[in-house]
């Protein structure tokens, strides 16, 4: 399925990219009174196969190399362009998306489209090649920006050498700041994405951090802190606050139990599922709390399936020998 997002990106671009971003500007033009002989020179010098015909600012027709050949065959090269041009003009608006141009190319079987502004004045010309080039450029711009960030992030652990390197991200979470809810988790999600973590792991981290973040927002008197420590194999998330503390940790862990007040439940929080969700997503979690002092939640998630298995294997080995 890995090809799907890129395909979608191209589709999106076709609909998003305006024609003016890909069209050729500074269009070469001829007047209706230009002779066919002069036209031949214009086409030859500029290595083009057709030009729009303008009477002052007014677009009046198009003339192509085909029209020139016909004129040559008929011995009519002295004629003005006006006499031999096509007045059937296929135009597109510059602010329309590229997909409109694609449709017109298919519909009219023409090689070029005339691009006009809202006033109907010619502002550019568009060929199939322009579209292809424009799309490729747009994709590579988008791709490069994210790719560079990814590359840098991915190699951070290789570039910076120590016996044990970790990347620590700290976020302050404000009490009752529902509007800010999810900010820290989406930043951590993005960081892991750039570090090259696998999507399944990112999902588990995102869910656990979101639940921990919301717990701080809903319950902690003065908010708290989220600390995500990433190492090449593992991410360790700490959610720490200074109270009120949980009287009964086991009860807090049981599904459906919640101390959230009604107004918070009405917002859709306080389902009593948060800690359960964390437990399901985490490879290990530890919840410690003292009433009046504070709560400390530690979540560990292995970034590579191999290291998770190794860890489990070690655990089994240890329990076997003890």
């Amino acid at each position, binding site marked *: 399925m890995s090809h799907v997002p890129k*395909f*979608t990106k191209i*589709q*999106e671009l076709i*609909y*998003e990219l305006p024609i003016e971003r890909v069209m050729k500007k500074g269009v070469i033009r001829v007047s209706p009174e230009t002779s066919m002989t002069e036209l031949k020179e214009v086409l030859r010098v500029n290595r083009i196969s057709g030009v729009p015909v303008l009477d002052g600012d007014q677009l009046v027709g198009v003339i192509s190399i085909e029209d020139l050949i016909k004129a040559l065959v008929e011995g009519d090269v002295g004629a003005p362009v006006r006499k031999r041009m096509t007045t059937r003009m296929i135009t597109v608006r510059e602010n329309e998306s590229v997909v409109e141009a694609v449709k017109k190319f298919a519909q009219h079987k023409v090689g070029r489209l005339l691009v006009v502004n809202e006033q109907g004045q010619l502002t550019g010309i568009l060929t199939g090649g322009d579209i292809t080039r424009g799309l490729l450029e747009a994709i590579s711009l988008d791709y490069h920006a994210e790719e560079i960030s990814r590359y840098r992030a991915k190699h951070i652990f290789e570039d910076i050498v120590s016996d044990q390197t970790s990347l620590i991200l700290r976020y302050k979470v404000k009490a009752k700041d*529902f*509007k800010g*809810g*999810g*900010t820290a*988790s*989406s930043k951590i*999600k993005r960081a892991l994405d750039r570090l090259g973590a696998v*999507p399944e792991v990112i*999902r588990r981290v*995102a*869910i656990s951090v*979101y*639940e921990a973040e*919301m717990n701080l927002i809903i319950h902690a008197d003065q908010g708290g802190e989220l600390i995500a420590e990433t190492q090449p194999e593992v991410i360790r998330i700490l959610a720490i606050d200074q109270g009120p503390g949980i009287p009964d940790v086991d009860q807090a862990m049981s599904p459906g139990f919640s101390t959230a007040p009604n107004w918070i439940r009405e*917002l*859709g*929080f306080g*389902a*009593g*599922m*948060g800690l*359960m*969700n964390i437990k*399901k997503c985490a490879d290990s979690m530890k919840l410690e709390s003292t009433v009046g002092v504070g709560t400390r939640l530690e979540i560990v998630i292995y970034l590579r399936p191999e290291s998770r298995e190794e860890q489990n294997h070690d655990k089994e080995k240890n329990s076997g020998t003890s």
Partner: protein
Amino acid sequence: MTSLKEIIETLTLETVSSVSTEGRSVVGGYAADLLSCAMKGAKKDYVWVTLQSHLNVVAVASLLNLAGVIITEGNRPDPETVARAEKEGVVLLVTPKTTFTVVGELTLLGVRGES
């Protein structure tokens, strides 16, 4: 797989965030108004049907990479929520229909939940 576009058209949903719906496929659906339940039950490229219309809906949808959120019973997200949705690329859709009706119509379109 059903396209999000087809869902929007068939269910006559109103798009409130100007985020492109082109090329988005919906692989499943989930309905609940409790955010933690949605966190657990909704998956990537799912459509989530809910009454909730506040800012955290966007956070959940973005963290889970949902295909879209259908907000039911005429509830409307405020401008701040819409702005955040646009920033995060979250498609927010609204409808006067109830959650029950929407889920029924989604099922007819072949959108299934986790069994």
